[in-house]
């Protein structure tokens, strides 16, 4: 799914004033309130856009599986310092950011937002 397709879908729903329920891998559906609105599957908008280990920065699309990001980093002896919980195999980077959950290293290494 391209960014343009995703944008078109959102525009179309906004035009109808229809609520959207954003969903990546659905691994955190149990968390927070009851999901409502028309399902917008964003998991198709995926892939690592840019990664240079010497910059300590990785850019990836929202639907990229967290596991894919983590294995790309691990191949270069790097990691996500905030240790995001997955809660299932489908967890995506976008869902990780939306939920804002960090792991036990947060106290020392900082949270997702850091």
């Amino acid at each position: 799914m391209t960014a343009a397709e995703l944008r078109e879908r959102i525009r179309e729903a906004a035009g109808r004033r229809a609520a959207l329920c954003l969903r990546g891998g659905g691994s955190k559906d149990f968390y927070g309130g009851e999901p409502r609105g028309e399902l917008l599957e964003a998991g198709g908008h995926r892939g690592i856009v840019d990664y240079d280990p010497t910059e300590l920065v990785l850019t990836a699309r929202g639907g990229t599986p967290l596991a894919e990001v983590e294995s790309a980093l691990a191949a270069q002896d790097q990691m996500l310092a905030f240790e995001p919980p997955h809660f299932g195999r489908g967890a995506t980077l976008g869902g990780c950011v939306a939920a804002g959950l960090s792991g036990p290293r947060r106290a020392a290494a900082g949270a997702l937002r850091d």
Partner: protein
Amino acid sequence: MGEALPRRDVDAARQRETVRALREFLPARAVLWEDEDTRPYECDGLTAYRRVPMVVALPETEAQVQRVLATCSALGVPVVPRGAGTGLSGGALPLGDGVLLSMAKFMRILRLDPLARLAVVQPGVRNAAISEAAAPFGLFYAPDPSSQIACTIGGNVAENSGGVHCLKYGLTVHNVLRVKGYTVAGEAVSFGSEALDAPGYDLLALAIGSEGLLAVTTEVTVRLLPRPPAARVVMASFDDVQKAGDAVAAVIAAGIIPAGLEMMDRPATRATEEFAGAGYDLEAAVILLCESDGAPEEVEEEVARMREVLARAGATRMTESRDETERLRFWSGRKAAFPAMGRISPDYYCMDGTIPRRRLGEVLGFIAEMERKYGLRCPNVFHAGDGNLHPLILFDANDADQLRRTEAFAGEVLEKCVAVGGTITGEHGVGVEKIDQMCVQFRPAELEVFHAVKRAFDPRGLLNPGKAVPTLARCAEFGRRHVHAASAPHADLPRF
């Protein structure tokens, strides 16, 4: 920069009215309006811009701050907040028809909790004073701007200040838990909490680095870290700038996050050596200062790995600090680099831009080209580890043409930073200094979002107006003067 600001045209009636309103609740010593009293506030660390404020207010209590703001709002008088005035982007440049609100009297550390590892301080507390107060508990406040003996935490919050150790420990935004303050209407606001997380949007991150445009800070809760028991610095010489730039990338790629990783070129080491006697290798084209901190065993191992990587990257000479005295001596030259420039030039202009590490060599080559183009010297001293450049353009402010060339030189370097995927500021903020380059960094739609955020806090534009975010009209004018101010490449990538 170097704008010829006219001698202020004070509207005497407006001034009398403002002074009278402020004197209703402030003592005489806290309201300054006579020229000899207000002149010391005419500029901050960016001395090329000066403007005497209409009135200076020096409140001593939070209630007074609130009333200064409410009073100015009611009168429609703009307010510029100021800490120690050490900022380098003109963020505290006064307005000739405005009130300069000095927070210098707010100098108390309200609470220091060693178990929760936090300190609650007033905005006028100096950066270094926090670490001094925390030292007996084995703690420190990590962000360490070069001006840390003088600059205040309120100013650090406004500019999202960094420093040598930010590569490992983060900027101000990573080390502050809560900010309290007042909007220009005098409404109390609080962002963040003492916990690691707070409900709602991350407005704390919005407040930090907002350059005094959204609220006036009256209380800051900072995070304290355990002071590392050991630290050692390796000084490595290189005969070529490109090799040194590659060495920086190689250190990071090897999985090492140094506590500090700084670069100085030969003109910079030569200028500082006379002044500080740090023991630098003056034959080297550039030197790197690469520091490791932590437990003694950790430092031992990391330093060995650093030396290995640096040697492989082509270091021609390496010296390691043997003890704390020597370590501080190695850093003394770096920390004294700016004042040392004062010995070799009447004036210097310290720039601040950030680029991807892998483009270091290329951008330094570009700066050397600009030195020839504009006929001005430009030593380089900077935070290489996070790609944060500080070229120092040497000039004589009494020569109007040199000032003009300095301005053009700086503008070209900042635009180069954007072109290679970087940003126009690393830690000094935009202020008035880099406001035109904001038009290069951002598109009109993005700037409009910034203006919308500003309006949400300050609908009438009374708090520090004219700083940080340019009007679209200003950008259009800048675009006409500047043909290459097209949209930035790699617009889809984050700006580091």
